[in-house]
């Protein structure tokens, strides 16, 4: 036997490995962990009492409420749009399919500020639709409907993007089997398609929700920043910070950070337990 150690062709030497690991860890610590810690440090900087008081302040409460309301509308809406779009794209052949897929991705490629601005131009005071709706007493821009619309637009791709590759990979065999056994379209969807995609759907909803609650750019443009009325949590954080209310700003921010952590934990659980059912092409 040769005394030379066998070198695994796809591994690196020890110093290289440790250097790489160190770089990654240092990067994570600097850019992810430190900001997260600072959020909580500042939030609790003047003690637990101040923290709780900051969160109970009426404007903060209304910001939290608004954020929950917006998410409660935007997430189910995008759940339905997402399922409908991916169902159509993955299970049927039609003209303009590639265009539709591109369209679904549009919110990812457009700056959120631009998407907010589009709604201002579409529904604002000097627009075509704005005065018309206003004559019926509907205010879109600088009000809750505008915030909901902007949020739906920005979070539109999450569910669809998660489902399309999975459903395309699963193909139409199961559905064909279901209808050949006498099921109607709805039954095929409910008993066969939905159970096949449920974990991926949950995953998409989770990401969609996180983004819906955290969206700043698009919402900032359409909101008008009316305290206690049209401020969502991220907007409220900015206002408080600009007012030098550090505890208040970071207090609200800590809730968003907690949401992020919760999302992360749920994501990890989903990925480890149902990884094969989440991504396309791994297992059948």
């Amino acid at each position, binding site marked *: 036997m040769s005394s030379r150690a066998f070198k695994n062709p796809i591994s690196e030497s020890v110093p290289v490995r440790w250097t790489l690991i160190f770089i990654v860890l240092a990067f994570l610590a600097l850019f992810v962990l430190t900001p997260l810690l600072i959020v909580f440090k500042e939030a609790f900087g003047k003690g637990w009492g101040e923290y709780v008081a900051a969160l109970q302040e009426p404007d903060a409460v209304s910001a939290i409420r608004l954020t929950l309301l917006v998410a409660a509308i935007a997430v189910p809406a995008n759940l339905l749009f997402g399922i409908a779009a991916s169902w159509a794209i993955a299970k049927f052949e039609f003209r303009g399919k590639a265009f539709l897929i591109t369209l679904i991705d549009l919110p990812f490629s457009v700056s959120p500020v631009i998407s907010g601005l589009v709604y201002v131009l579409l529904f604002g005071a000097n627009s075509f639709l704005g005065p018309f709706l206003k004559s019926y007493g509907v205010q879109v821009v600088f009000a809750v409907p505008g915030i909901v619309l902007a949020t739906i637009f920005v979070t539109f791709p999450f569910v669809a993007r998660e489902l399309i590759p999975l459903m395309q990979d699963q193909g139409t065999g*199961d559905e*064909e089997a*279901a*209808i*050949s*056994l*006498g099921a109607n379209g709805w039954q095929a969807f409910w008993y066969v398609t939905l*159970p096949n995609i449920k974990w991926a759907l949950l995953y998409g909803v989770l990401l969609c929700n996180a983004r819906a609650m955290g969206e700043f750019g698009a919402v900032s443009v359409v909101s008008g920043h009316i305290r206690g009325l049209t401020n969502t949590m991220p907007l409220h954080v900015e206002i408080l910070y600009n007012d030098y209310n550090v505890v208040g700003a970071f207090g609200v921010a800590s809730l968003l950070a907690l949401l992020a952590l919760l999302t992360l934990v749920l994501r990890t659980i989903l990925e480890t337990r149902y990884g094969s059912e989440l991504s396309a092409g791994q297992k059948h």
Partner: protein
Amino acid sequence: MEIRVEKIRKEFDLYPALHDVSLDIKSGELIALLGPSGSGKTTLLRLIAGLEQPTQGRIFFGNEDASYKSVQERNVGFVFQHYALFRHMTVAENVAFGLTVRPKAQRPPKAEIRRRALELLDMVQLSGLEKRFPNQLSGGQRQRVALARAMAIEPRVLLLDEPFGALDAKVRKELRRWLREFHDRTGHTTVFVTHDQEEALELADRVVVMSQGKIEQVGSSDDVYDRPNSPFVFSFIGESANLPVTVEGGAVFFHGAPTGLSAQRDGAARLFFRPQDVSLAQEGPCFTGPVTSSRRLAGTRIAEVELGSSDQPCHVEIEVPLDAAASNGSVLSFRPTRWKLFY
């Protein structure tokens, strides 16, 4: 239930997958659609099922025009190539699915559905596995669950798409025999698609040989093997050799030399024969050439013989007796005993 396919044409994006195909399937018959991939055999099966719509033509179930009926209305049992079992349902739930989704008025009570599902599982010899999930079954077991599931709706016809395609050779053979027995017991009109000629010839009452969206020949195993009616069928089914020949004055010539064969019609033709349908010749006009390779195949020997001129050689494989001198380079003379000319 008889099925009549009348001048069916199917185009996918203007590319024709089937050209004016007509076929009569008798009641209670086990029929195979056999062909290479791209021959349109699966498309024909899916058209019968109603999973595809014909561009033109009609399909009759008995005397009833089913051409524009939906899959659900046609009431066919379809077994998919990869089974398409519902992975989140147990075996029993899979089998019961067709009954569970019936409208309330036609749906049997729960206990009855369960009883029928268990009965079907018993029929496909899977009793005791009803609580398993599809991924806990072997390929052959999944195949039988798929069959039981299709039978649960009491279909008028049974359609199987490459039923044994995804199984290993041994299970394939077992299931093949089993399906034949199953068919004889239940008496359903059964159509199955396969690219495996051995499977088709062994299993089916009649074989439909298809190529490039057309039916080449319909007949019993004996018909398509012994009396192929086209060069395609002759070369697709079983082993065969073919040579370019010319017929002049009733005699068949190969490369200008008489072959000892005679034919009625003059002209250029292709001579087809099977490797085992030859006899070695000692004298007289025949095919003669050097052996380029030979191999032992079970009880016989197959020799590859080079015929014709050296600049345009034709290679044919023939079966020779084990004691014949057929080493490389030795010259063999033979004459086909059964053969067919296609002009």
